[in-house]
């Protein structure tokens, strides 16, 4: 066995954005234990254990830069996983100089300037089109929609995506998207405004769970009875507890629980999702969410590439990972994609699950192809993205 391979984890672990980093680190620890228990990572020079080295960047670009420097120059990591967002531009010069391989959860960080940054876990927010598409096919009598979103870097591209998806599906928007400040806590006024138009569908965009829960509760209490679609529905069981099973029935979102039987299918590339989910919930009850598995799924991809390359060298791993333009995404085979939206093919895109709540439990209703949708409606997406200044070449 050779040296331990070190992987950098550079994300907010304290402060207001910690919910996007801390559960991911927890998931990675579980991933590392499982991989190490199975012997580790097999490279040309033998088996290596993996270890995560974390640096709390507090979601601050300057601290992220410091952290990247430390992880690369002092800790000698082979790969760095980041949340991205505000922190990525601070790290970008370091990435350019060192050639280190970085991953982000937010593909809007991608740009042709940096080809060592990849977004292999999710192409937020593009996958949201799959939910709308599924809805239009399966519930064709829903004709009108309204939408609300927090006014931040995650909310706006998501608004553009949903607008494109609704337009593609022939669903009419009754009102401009309602933007609210990220610090909002009382959602009654927002909901009153939303349902004053009597929509068939209320779209919650990429609201964080801190918003999704109170909004759903208010929708329930203010008497909304129609369809709800949202990017996420973390802790939906609690939402049911606050509303009713009947109200939540048919709620559409995009993130399955990892005990979903559909994830045991052969095309799924996440190792033992059910076991991972059970272990995580045991150690960190009440903390499960999309971030919990996404960093780990990136590690699956990285491990496969490293083993293929026989080395942990960033260049070699990158080459192996992008070999043939295809990659193994958590939800099936996928392609490296994104030139039109991001200026570079560094996002791994393939199928994405559409999840609905049925009888109080999230169930995958099917996997839909994002590239297929894009082939048909890409122009709409670009139109709306442009309107919200979200194209890569529009970002200042």
């Amino acid at each position: 066995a050779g040296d331990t391979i070190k992987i950098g984890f550079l994300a907010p672990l304290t402060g207001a954005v910690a919910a996007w980093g801390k559960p991911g680190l927890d998931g990675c620890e579980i991933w590392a234990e499982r991989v190490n228990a199975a012997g580790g990572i097999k490279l040309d020079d033998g088996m290596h254990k993996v270890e995560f080295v974390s640096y709390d960047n507090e979601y601050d670009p300057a601290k992220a830069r410091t952290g990247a420097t430390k992880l690369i120059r002092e800790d000698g990591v082979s790969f760095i996983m980041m949340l991205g967002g505000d922190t990525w531009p601070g790290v970008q010069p370091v990435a350019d100089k060192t050639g280190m391989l970085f991953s982000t959860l937010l593909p809007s960080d991608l740009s042709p300037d940096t080809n060592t940054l990849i977004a292999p876990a999710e192409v937020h927010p593009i996958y949201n089109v799959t939910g709308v598409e599924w809805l239009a096919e399966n519930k064709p009598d829903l004709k009108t929609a309204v939408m609300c979103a927090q006014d931040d870097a995650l909310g706006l591209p998501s608004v553009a995506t949903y607008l494109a998806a609704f337009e593609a599906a022939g669903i009419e928007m009754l009102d401009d998207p309602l933007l609210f400040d990220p610090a909002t806590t009382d959602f009654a006024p927002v909901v009153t405004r939303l349902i004053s138009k009597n929509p068939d569908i209320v779209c919650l965009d990429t609201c964080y769970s801190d918003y999704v829960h109170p909004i759903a509760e208010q929708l329930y209490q203010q008497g909304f009875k129609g369809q709800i679609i949202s990017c996420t529905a973390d802790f939906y069981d609690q939402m049911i507890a606050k509303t009713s099973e009947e109200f939540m029935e048919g709620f559409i979102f995009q993130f399955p629980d990892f005990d979903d039987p559909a994830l045991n299918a052969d095309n799924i590339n996440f190792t033992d999702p059910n076991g991972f989910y059970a272990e995580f919930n045991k150690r960190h009850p009440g903390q499960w969410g999309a971030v919990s598995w996404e960093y780990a799924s990136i590690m699956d991809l990285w491990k496969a590439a490293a083993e293929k390359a026989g080395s942990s060298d960033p260049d070699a791993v990158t080459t192996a990972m992008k070999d043939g333009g295809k990659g193994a995404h958590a939800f099936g085979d996928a392609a490296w994609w994104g030139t039109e939206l991001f200026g570079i093919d560094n996002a791994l895109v393939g199928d994405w699950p559409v999840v609905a709540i049925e009888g109080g439990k999230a169930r995958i209703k099917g996997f839909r192809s994002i590239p297929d949708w894009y082939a048909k409606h890409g122009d709409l997406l670009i139109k709306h993205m442009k309107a919200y200044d979200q194209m890569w070449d529009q970002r200042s």
Partner: protein
Amino acid sequence: MLELLAQTGLNAVYAASYISLVAVGLVLIFGVMGVVNFAHGELFMAGAYAIVALYAKMHVPFFVAVAIGLVFVGCLGLLMERALFRPLKDNPLGGLVASIGFLMILQALAVMGFGVRMEHIPPVTQEVIQFSDKVRLPVARLYVIVASVALLSVLWYFLKRTKFGWALRASAQDPEAAALQGISITQTAKIAMFIGAGLAGIAGALTAPLVSVNPHMGHSVIVTAFIVIIVGGVGSLEGAIIASVAYAFVHTFVTTFYDGVLADITGLCLMLIVLIVKPTGLFGSADRA
């Protein structure tokens, strides 16, 4: 349209209720202790976590949990008084820094005890009072409104009609002179801190089932509370209540009829305008030469 106005009005009344609870507590602490309590939002958060621990996890009946939460956060207030503000009583900036330190500690403890993600609280009641199909008042919100009106009325009576209130007012204006009239200033400081913190705590506890409880939830609350007490005039209870109502109505209506970000800007501009017209707030008074 009428229904929309009515529903928005109800929303605003609820917002005014919890904001005024928090703001009045902050005013009371500032008035008597002379320090800007930056940790006030975290006292609100502590009240909410009391409900998480007692009601959601240990299944204590809700109103019992609220009462315990009130006392618990009130005691945090006493702790702050004894450990921070009393030793720093001649040093208002020191008090401010200490309260920031306390804020960080409370947040960190919440993270350590409960994790960084939001907490879940089962609904207390799902009943809704229906005035019409589109005008509804959830009973859980009614609780907050009723509690706020009741508590503030009691506080009003306490402050305006009893000797304690008199003592609080006197020691707020000149602690030494108050002591010379036989008023125990440590006693009044303790009472003020207990009530002030307790009000923040009960606001947090009562609204916990209605909002997302997380370790950083205090932030937006304190920003609102600061705006409100400045508009009302620092140290003025009437001012704080009236400004809470005004702010809640403006914010709620702008959110509903325009959007939430504009509502924030409107709120801040409103405050600046009040201050430009009357630099001591609506009910504050200037000092003589």
